[in-house]
């Protein structure tokens, strides 16, 4: 049986968790076994109905008022007790911020190793085999596990969702015991930038700027484009971040975030190795750069050799036209 952790933030199920469940469902179907899901928190029962359509045979809801805010210690304790009871062969998480924080804590509690940020899963001789990028995608490692349960986190935006449909499925609520003194770190509040944009790791379209943007105020041009494009976010190269033009949260590349959106548009980015590592698994890449020799063109599906400041106004106009049709 495969168990998939479902992340809920501010009363919503995270899409990347449903991607992980979808992948779990596909692997479970291969072996004619079950994919089950688990929610952890306080008063989350109503969310179970959002999870069932993605293929969970059972949705466990682990409940305790101390779990109303996320803590690695509390959540891993709750999950540990469920894992001990139902003994899954495989446990999957999304490699979201929470998944990356929680999965290793649970793995250490169980005394098992963990494969992080995987981009492929399959079975080999009845055992899970995963592929994961190393060196930010400059290489890919195939791994199998010598400990059980086999645990992996799955990169967001890589695994397709199964078609949601009305399926049967059981919701099992469990009160878990959490000793209060074990939670020694607690989230006080979530600080959100005003007009906060979608995170680059979650966006389906990333519009990025590099040194060619020439200054911080020019990033507004990219924000204007993301305001037109659905599920999009503004990204940046390291040189733009290091110049102080935009916050490092937006940085794509080896010292920033690795992204795999449907579409990556690079404006004025030369394409340093460390940047390419972070975005070359995007499905489509478009590059605009004045320099015809820029390395970014080597990975672009569509490249335009031109001044980005001349391109963007036309692009806005054309996008508005196409999107209104």
């Amino acid at each position, binding site marked *: 049986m495969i168990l998939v952790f479902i992340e809920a933030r501010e009363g919503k199920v995270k899409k990347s968790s449903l991607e992980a469940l979808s992948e779990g469902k596909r692997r479970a179907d291969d072996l004619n076994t079950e994919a089950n899901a688990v929610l952890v928190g306080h008063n989350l029962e109503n969310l179970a109905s959002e999870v069932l359509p993605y293929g969970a045979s059972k949705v466990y809801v682990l409940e305790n008022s101390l779990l109303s805010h*996320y803590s690695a*210690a509390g959540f891993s304790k709750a999950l540990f007790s469920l894992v001990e009871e139902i003994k899954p062969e495989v446990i999957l998480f999304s490699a979201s*911020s*929470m998944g*990356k924080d*929680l*999965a*290793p*804590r649970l*793995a*250490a*509690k169980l005394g098992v*190793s*963990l494969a*992080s940020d995987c981009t492929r899963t399959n079975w080999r001789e009845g055992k899970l085999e995963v592929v994961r990028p190393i*060196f*930010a*995608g*400059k*290489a*890919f490692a*195939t*791994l199998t*596990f*010598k*400990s059980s349960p086999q645990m992996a986190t799955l990169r967001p935006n890589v695994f397709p969702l199964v078609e949601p449909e009305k399926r049967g499925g059981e919701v099992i609520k469990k009160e878990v015991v959490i000793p209060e003194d074990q939670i*020694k*770190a*607690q989230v*006080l*509040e*979530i*600080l*959100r930038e005003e007009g906060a*944009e979608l*995170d680059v790791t*979650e966006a389906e379209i990333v519009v990025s700027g590099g040194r060619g943007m020439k200054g911080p105020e020019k990033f507004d041009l990219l924000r204007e484009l993301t305001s037109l494009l659905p599920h999009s976010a503004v990204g940046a190269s390291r040189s733009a971040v290091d110049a102080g033009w935009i916050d490092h*949260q937006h*940085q794509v*590349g*080896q*010292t920033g975030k690795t992204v795999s959106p*449907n*579409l990556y548009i690079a404006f004025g980015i030369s394409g*340093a*190795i460390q940047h390419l*590592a972070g975005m070359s*698994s995007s499905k489509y*890449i*478009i590059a605009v750069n004045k320099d*015809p020799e820029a390395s970014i*063109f*080597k990975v672009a599906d569509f*490249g*335009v050799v031109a001044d980005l400041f001349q391109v963007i106004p*036309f692009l806005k*106009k*054309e*996008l508005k036209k*196409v999107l209104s049709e």
Partner: protein
Amino acid sequence: MNIFVFVKRVPDTESKIRINHEKRTIVEEGLNFVLNPYDEYAVEEALRLREAKGGKVTVLSVGAEESLVILKKCLAMGADEAFLLKDDTPETYDGLRMAKIIARALEKKFSDYSLLLFGKQSMGADNAQVPSMVAELLGLPQVNVVTKLEIEGNKGIAHREIEGALEKVSFSLPAVISAQKGLNEPRYETLKGIMMAKRKEIPILSFEDLDLKEEDIVPLLEMTKVESPPPRKAGKIIEEEPEEAVKKMVEFLHQEAKVI
């Protein structure tokens, strides 16, 4: 405050990665190795905390003797002491193995810690596992991917980066913190620092010193293959007037890529 920082030697980000398919590993020859950039933020934060609150900064690395170079760098930045836990095993990409070594070292040799600082991940393995695993093995609170840290007495407040927002987290010491870019601007080593670092001994500890047996730290992940990423097919590059170029670009997006 007794602060420990854990650092790793990694290939720099400009490195082209070549693969030895037979040995299922990357080719280290010709690579330029540096102190893991995220660890540099951790070292800097430790030094700032010591400057503000007093105490001691000890830096540890687990690895081959080549790692002495990055430990020297940390001493030159201003760390008080550095230790190498000698491990000649090639990279296993197994975070649990590393966490067990570190947790054991802390229990056996350095049990008087108030803060354990890490980089949020090591460049290359990209696991981001070790800090949380060490926290679990030692029963400590953890705050990962931290961009702001304040310590007051035996309590702290940290800002942790999550998707499009920050979590403000309060925690008690001792604790595990992992550093994200943005936490600070690491200092350069001064000439004086480099001279001082030269005179400092870096003790080397073995697994025997930690009562660790090989069977306690067998990697539980097996790497069966290492490959280069699939090459991207060469695309269309056009040099035309911007207006015309944009029309073709949007047509590509709409009809070929079907993204809009």
